């Protein structure tokens, strides 16, 4: 039902151009054959992509980010599932408070979290360690894992579990054969969203990552602070490419809307 007139469509085009411009610029500049920031005009070159190999700190930072994201998301999901089941099914006193508490990292500026963790970890001897990074990332991604797992748990028809019980299933059978398979989509999409948020996190991480434990965004940020040259654009272009690929896969599998809004709300999908 496209009732958008030409004016609306023109606005829309400008808007999309605005949204894509910076991203496209980074990708273009990454292909420059020159040794300085410039647009590739008549020649395109991969020299700056090959150059990444000369900077092992970027490569190790990449793997660290990947590993960090995978672990902290997995743990966040592992903690969220029982909490989601509790919140979805029981009306217990403090339910609202607990839900707000678990979602609160969304409202706390990552700046404050970074500072708090820096102080805390230094005091307890986890300063600059990978463990500290994992703990902090679990905290910031739990709201995403929880939101999606909760949506799945809430959408689960309780009478399905009653039916299984009436047919003789014990509690563990119900959990294993009925509940978990049915909340699995929420679990997986929760993990995926948590992972992406962990991978991109920079504000908090910049406070707590020490030179040996930097993540990719932090490494990129620190590099840019010193100078901006095509190397960081080629690294960024790689990150963008990977993210876009992941985006398409996630959208196919779950629907981007469901991931970001928490439930699939639009008609015509």
């Amino acid at each position, binding site marked *: 039902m*496209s009732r*958008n007139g030409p004016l*609306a469509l023109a*606005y*829309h085009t400008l*808007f*999309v151009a*605005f*949204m894509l411009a*910076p*991203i496209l*610029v*980074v990708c273009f500049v990454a292909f420059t054959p020159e040794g300085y*920031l410039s647009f590739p005009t008549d020649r395109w070159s991969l020299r700056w992509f090959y150059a990444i190999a000369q900077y092992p700190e970027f490569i190790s930072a990449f793997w660290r980010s990947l590993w960090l994201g995978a672990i902290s998301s997995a743990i966040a999901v592992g*903690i969220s599932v*029982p*909490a989601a089941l509790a*919140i979805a*099914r029981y009306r*217990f006193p403090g339910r609202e408070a*607990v839900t707000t*508490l*678990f979602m*609160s990292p969304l409202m706390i*500026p*990552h*700046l*404050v*979290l970074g*500072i*708090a963790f820096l*102080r*805390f970890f230094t005091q307890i001897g986890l300063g600059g360690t990978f463990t500290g990074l994992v703990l902090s990332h679990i*905290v910031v991604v739990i709201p995403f894992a929880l939101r999606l797992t909760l949506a799945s748990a809430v959408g689960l028809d309780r009478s399905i579990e009653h039916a299984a019980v009436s047919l003789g299933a014990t509690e563990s059978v119900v959990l294993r054969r009925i509940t978990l398979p049915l909340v699995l989509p929420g679990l997986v999409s929760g993990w995926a969203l948590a992972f992406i948020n962990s*991978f*991109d996190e*920079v*504000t908090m991480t910049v*406070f707590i990552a020490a030179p040996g434990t930097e993540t*990719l*965004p932090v490494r*990129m940020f620190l590099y*840019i*602070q010193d100078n*901006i040259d095509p190397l960081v*654009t080629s690294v*960024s272009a790689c*990150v*963008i490419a990977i*993210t*876009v690929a992941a*985006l398409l896969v996630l*959208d196919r599998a779950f629907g*981007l*809307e469901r991931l*970001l809004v928490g439930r699939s*709300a*639009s008609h*015509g*999908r």
Partner: protein
Amino acid sequence: MKAAPYLLCLPALVLFAGVVIVPLAMTVLLSFHDWGQYKGIEPVFILKNWQEVLSDSYFHEMFARTFRIAFFVTLLAAVFGAPEAYILNRMRSPWRGIFLLVILGPLLISVVARTLGWALLFGGNSGLVNKALMGMGLISAPLPFMFTETGIVIALAHVLMPYMVLAVWASLQRLDPQIENAAVALGAGPFTVLRRIVLPQVMPGILSGAVIVFALAASAFATPAIIGGRRLKVASTLAYDEFLNTLNWPLGAAVAVLLLMALVAIVWGANRLVERRYAQVFA
């Protein structure tokens, strides 16, 4: 089993108690400690840092800048993001899904990469933006964007725009499309429908999006750091400086805690306003 829900929440509760509440409490405490270049952090309880942060004009200026930037970013996001959400909503699939992906997708792309793009666009005299503006004849000499507040505002508006579109979009999904048709059938023209029917109903969505964008803009770090540079400081980059360069952790803590309290107050107040104003519509 009455204890079941509590047991299920236990891992998360333990995590939060130990890794969120304790560190935050410690940070607040830290803001009351003393610091000296040679003695380091002295765990006493004094108001020195708070007095400095609250009375020194340098801090006033910096906080004013922080909230000024956040305000304009929110304004831009609302003014430009809301109509786009509306236009998106009226598209038919597959365009709708495709453009939703294009506009919301950037949320998942690293903020450093996105800001880098703006640094390139703004860069020096050969920045694309200036070239385009001069090419269109709108300006005769390149405007400074890099290391200016304007530059930060534009870059942040770009980074945070998807949150506004998302909030308004979510709000639009809850609208019954037949309501617009009912208004048209009763004789309302398209602008009247927009103004009297659609806008009042998406206002809560716009406001909740505004709250999110404002909070994120005020506490943003990477974008102001890259676009603003070392000289144009906002609250977060100032705290970073204190922590990692000057090493005056207590002062940095005071800045951060003040920012947190200000944001909590603003967000809470705005939410109350929205609730009270719109409770009747959606009760």
